[in-house]
């Protein structure tokens, strides 16, 4: 029989190395995957990992994809550190897009500087509203936030679908399930001329730094960390758990909502039924890949963004299915979790001992 035995002193160094090991193993597994698919391996790797970022436009695209991932993942990692498992960032992202997008459509053809800030506020409010529901259920009736936040994601997706098929549908859009294209005053300006890189990239950097300081230097960050590892000690120190649950969920909701607004007011420029390629879920992988540390999450976000671009590029140049992206992301999480298990446990072969 094989069983796992807890290690007395898990290696700290390996903890930091694990994401890199997972990355290498993912590449190795990818190599065999490409081989089995009968794809020229060298070309596939090139298409997947190098081509997408070989020019400035590609780098900007990396930023466009990485910004929402990093924003959401950093916010999620704060909550995860506190033991608040918000799995519904995807839904909060969509609500942010809906609310911000609705403001854009309401002020259609209004040329005013206040439109964009108002959209941002609406996006934040939408995300927070959606996150407030699991927070309320958790703190009042002790409903598990993993389930409630996840289920609300599907409600959000259906709500978006309903809106773009109905009330918010473009009146001149030949019945396509999309809204009007946003007016110029409602679109995010590009940060780098000639690319789609928008202000979200700067916000992602800002949030990363802010979360870093919050987590390592403030009382709130300390309370979050204590609550995650030793909830009874948090009680002993006088950190109210309900407050930490509310903060974690509302903060992630706000950030995810803002990211959703950035997505519809930036690269997409309208509301349609597919405004997110799963950013809210991928951000969970990003948060763990980055070891729930804001700086780690930042780099993990870049890696994961590359996997999106690589998937698209491989699809175009090599006719590979887009599902390859999901396969790579899944393998990365799998190897990371496996590495974590092996850091904390050793495998013992033989008969189980009675302790």
């Amino acid at each position, binding site marked *: 029989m094989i069983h796992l035995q807890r290690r007395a002193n898990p290696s700290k160094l390996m903890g930091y190395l694990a994401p890199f090991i997972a990355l290498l193993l993912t590449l190795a597994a990818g190599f065999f995957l490409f081989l089995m698919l009968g794809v020229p391996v060298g070309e596939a790797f090139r298409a997947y990992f190098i081509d997408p970022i070989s020019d400035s436009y590609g780098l900007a695209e990396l930023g466009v994809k990485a910004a929402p991932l990093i924003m959401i993942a950093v916010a999620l990692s704060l909550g995860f550190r506190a033991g608040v498992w918000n799995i519904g960032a995807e839904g909060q992202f969509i609500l942010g897009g809906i609310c911000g997008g609705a403001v854009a459509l309401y002020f259609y053809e209004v040329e005013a500087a206040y439109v964009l800030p108002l959209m941002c506020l609406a996006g934040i409010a939408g995300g927070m509203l959606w996150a407030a529901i699991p927070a309320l259920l958790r703190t009042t009736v002790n409903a598990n936030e993993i389930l409630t936040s996840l289920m609300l994601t599907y409600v959000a997706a259906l709500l978006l679908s309903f809106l773009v098929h109905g009330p918010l549908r473009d009146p001149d859009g030949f019945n396509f399930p999309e809204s009007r294209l946003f007016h110029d005053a409602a679109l995010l300006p590009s940060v780098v001329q000639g690319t789609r890189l928008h202000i979200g990239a700067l916000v992602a950097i800002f949030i990363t730094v802010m979360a870093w300081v919050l987590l390592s230097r403030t009382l709130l960050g300390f309370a979050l960390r204590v609550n995650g590892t030793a909830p009874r*000690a948090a009680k002993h120190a006088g950190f109210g758990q309900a407050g930490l649950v509310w903060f974690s969920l509302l903060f992630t909701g706000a950030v995810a909502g803002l990211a959703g607004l950035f997505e519809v007011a930036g690269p997409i420029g309208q509301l349609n039924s597919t405004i997110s390629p799963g950013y809210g879920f991928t951000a969970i992988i990003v948060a763990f890949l980055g070891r729930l540390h804001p700086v780690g999450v930042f780099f993990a976000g870049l890696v994961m963004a590359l996997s999106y671009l690589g998937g698209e590029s491989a699809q175009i140049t090599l006719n590979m299915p887009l599902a390859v992206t999901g396969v790579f992301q899944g393998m990365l999480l799998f190897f990371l979790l496996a590495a974590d298990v092996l850091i904390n446990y050793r495998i013992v072969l033989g008969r189980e001992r009675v302790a």
Partner: protein
Amino acid sequence: MAGSSLVTMQNITKAYPGVLANDAVHFDIGHGEIHALLGENGAGKSTLVKVLYGLLQPDSGSVTWQGQAVKLSSPSVARSLGIAMVFQHFSLFESLTVVENIAMGMAVPATDNLRKRIIEVSNRYGLPLEPNRDVFTLSVGERQRIEIIRCLLQNPKLLIMDEPTSVLTPQEVQDLFVTLKRLASEGVSILYISHKLDEIRELCDAATILRGGKNVATANPKEESAQSLAALMIGEDIQPAIRTNQVKLGEPLLALNQLTITSKSVQNMSLRDINLKVHAGEIVGIAGVAGNGQDELLSAIAGETRSSGEMIWLKGEFVSYWSVGSRRQAGLCAVPEERLGHAAVPSMSLSENAFLTGFHRQKLRTAGLVSAGRCKKAANAVIDEFDVQCHGPHSAASSLSGGNLQKFVVGREILQAPDVLVVSQPTWGVDAGAAAAIHKALQGLAKNGAAVLVISQDLDELIAITDRIGALCAGRLSKLYATTDVDAQQVGQLMGGTHSLEVVA
């Protein structure tokens, strides 16, 4: 009584990263001998016993069982030889009956035959136990009997008992000793691990004393005094805490008025009508067997559970609705029983753990940001003042031995100079030297005008340091008596549920 050697352990050496837990240790126990294993925390007692029970493999050394060299590669090997162990922490299924639990432990079906054997053994050794009772209805002492009977059913030649009396009332301790002596007279050897030197002097025929992983002495405890045994254990003379008799009672600082908290879960005891006043300058002790509401009382006073109305009064104000933080700022500090995970965060450093409760009363932040330097200073102060053995303020709380972490969490609160300190099990698992230091610190705090409430299962400790004493039983607090007016037997009665003693003048 003791015959030829039953088991001999020679040159047992076991190293952990950075620590030599056992350094060429010898140990020898004869047939029918009650042999004590003594030593401070971290002296290597647990390691040696784990080697003997097959839980650990030594790096070198040999074990001889009745003249034959044996390799104790697992507990099942040890059990097949006739070695049985009663652990300090029981592993029982609360919702099952006694007989079902015993059947589980022995991996046999719960038959009528087993039930008969249980009754037989329990009668023979004076261990009254009803086989069909559900475990959750039993007291800690009764639960321990299950573990002992489980061992006895396997006809052991050697019975290892790890701190068996730490959870028992004085009466239960006496009953246990009768059983153990009976067993020894029938030829069963008993390895007895305890911190309580008086018990060892009463019960044991021989004692092996370990210090820092090495043998320091083999003594006959009946010929030693508790003082001399303690000196052997820690290598120096210790000054026991001496009660300062002139207590100047000051103003009451903490009062509980009909404190009643109804528990929402089966694991917690409800508190009922608790009345208590603790004055400046005194130490009040609350005795009681574990699980009679101690945790609930501490968390109600500390503010982890809120009460209502005028139930809790602190320095002139009713604080029932106050948060933990407000109570701490007002001068009430608390040390819960559970060190890891409740009083301290295991994965965090001592610096961070100093911040955990210290930030309410000490200035550990600059401009709103946690100051690593100040936290380190605060942690260092505790480490120096209370002689906490560790690698420094950056060590993780989980890396400290139980006794050292205890010194840290008690010291952390004392150095915050509280007006009221509530502490649960202040010297649980702490060696004699450290216990004396903690007792002195508590007395010093009271002397400087603080009100100290000590909740403990260690009766000797309470009798040694408190001014007034009472006991918790089933969530009710007995009347309080001046500690000098009562003896251990009388407090034992209070622990057993007697509300007031008529005989006390």
